[in-house]
């Protein structure tokens, strides 16, 4: 099968890869770029752990054809920390015990970032809606909701 050249920005850095037709963005990020932070959960858009931002908007990378992101800007959890410092959302997740097994955490953090980037002081209902496409098995969501609200409030912990 012929491959298609593809260029896009990945966490602020230009990348160029060759993809097979039909390759999804999740596979391109994990296997061709080596960014393992978007997780493979269900592969059909049901769990949210593969969530990434495309030009600032939340998308499921497992349902996004890689070729459609040519020239666009992709953000993943790998680009979230600021130098040696954790992003306030990451700090708040740690302080609020918002992760257990951790498999949903990358998707939760990206969904939370998408929310706070456009709405810095969301209500609890808005936080719930923002992460409603993401499944968590361990936490019961409450610590995650509290962490996002704490990060929005500029507090280190709830």
């Amino acid at each position: 099968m012929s491959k298609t050249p593809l260029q896009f920005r990945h966490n602020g850095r230009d990348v160029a890869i060759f993809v097979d037709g039909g390759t999804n963005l999740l596979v391109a990020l994990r296997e061709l770029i080596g960014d393992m932070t978007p997780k493979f959960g269900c592969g059909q858009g049901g769990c949210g752990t593969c969530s990434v931002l495309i030009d600032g908007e939340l998308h499921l990378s497992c349902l996004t054809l890689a070729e459609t992101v040519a020239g666009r800007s992709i953000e993943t959890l790998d680009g979230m920390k600021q130098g040696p410092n954790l992003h306030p959302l990451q700090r708040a997740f740690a302080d609020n015990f918002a992760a257990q097994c951790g498999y949903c955490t990358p998707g939760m953090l990206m969904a939370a970032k998408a929310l706070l980037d456009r709405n810095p002081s969301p209500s609890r209902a808005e936080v719930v809606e923002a992460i409603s496409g993401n499944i968590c098995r361990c936490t019961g969501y409450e610590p995650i909701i509290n962490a996002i609200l704490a990060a929005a409030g500029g507090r280190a912990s709830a």
Partner: protein
Amino acid sequence: MTRHRGRGMASINYPIGMNLGGDPSQALVHSNPSGKFTVALSSIDLGQGMKSVTRQICAETLGVPVEDVYVDTADSDTGPHCMGSFASRGTHRVGNAVMAAAREARGVMMEAAAEELEVNAADLETDGRGNIHVKGAPHRSISTKDVAIAAQFKQGKTISGRGIFLVPLSDVDPETGEMSPATCYAHACLVAEVEVDDETGEVAMVRMDSAYELGRALNPRLVEQQLVGGAWMGVSHALYETPEPYYPDPVHGPRDFVEYLMPGPGDICPHDIAVLERPAPDGPFGAKGPGEMCANPVLPAVANAIFNAVGVRIDDLPITPEKVLRAIKAQGGARPQARR
């Protein structure tokens, strides 16, 4: 259409670990020449926090800062044997094994320190900050790092310890059938309040109130995390998830997360939790284990709450809207029970 509120309660006795084959776990503890300690385990941390808790237990027993202990659970091929992370046994069984290993390692460490300070080991104590000194004479002191270096390069000693925890196998009495399946029990009580829609059969959680007696909470935030999250696994078993909805008929079995239902963030409700600490005589520092029991009382409490709300007794999990609706129709309508 009416939405009926109902309240249900359940209490549990929960055995920690299992008795079959004695349920053993092993741990090995050794110091590095830097004076830091490594705990080798085959027990797996699934996110429940066993690495944190065994680290605390080891540091406390050795008398060193928690930062000086590293827990390695990397490989069950090369690590000491563990039965596994299940049956809420990690803190209790593995914790006890770590404690035994750390105690033995501490003995060697104190002997090595005694040799360097030219005193009797019985006269030494740890300060919990990385130093060992003569009791009542803090200036007669040596760091654990210097002890480790002396043991390694001068005395030719390994500062290490072995630990195992084994519950003796309880045989069944042939006359009475009596046996002791467990040595340690945790307890819980949970009240669930639900709202049942008599037109759709849907059950919504309104609130939960619970009390858990689980020995000493070695890490209170991790205990809280387990209880908060585990309750929703219980709700999920009670109301949502099953791989075989029409068992044994595989028709309509779920194929993905759209059909295999679990609670989402919009389904949760307030949950007030009281943790009661009554130290267990045979637990490490009195700990039992919050593990699975955080889900267990939720299932019967929710089933009881549904009965209280609409008068239908459903004993087949999960309690789906279809089952609720069929039961309501079979009895000719919702029959709310007395609120208690």
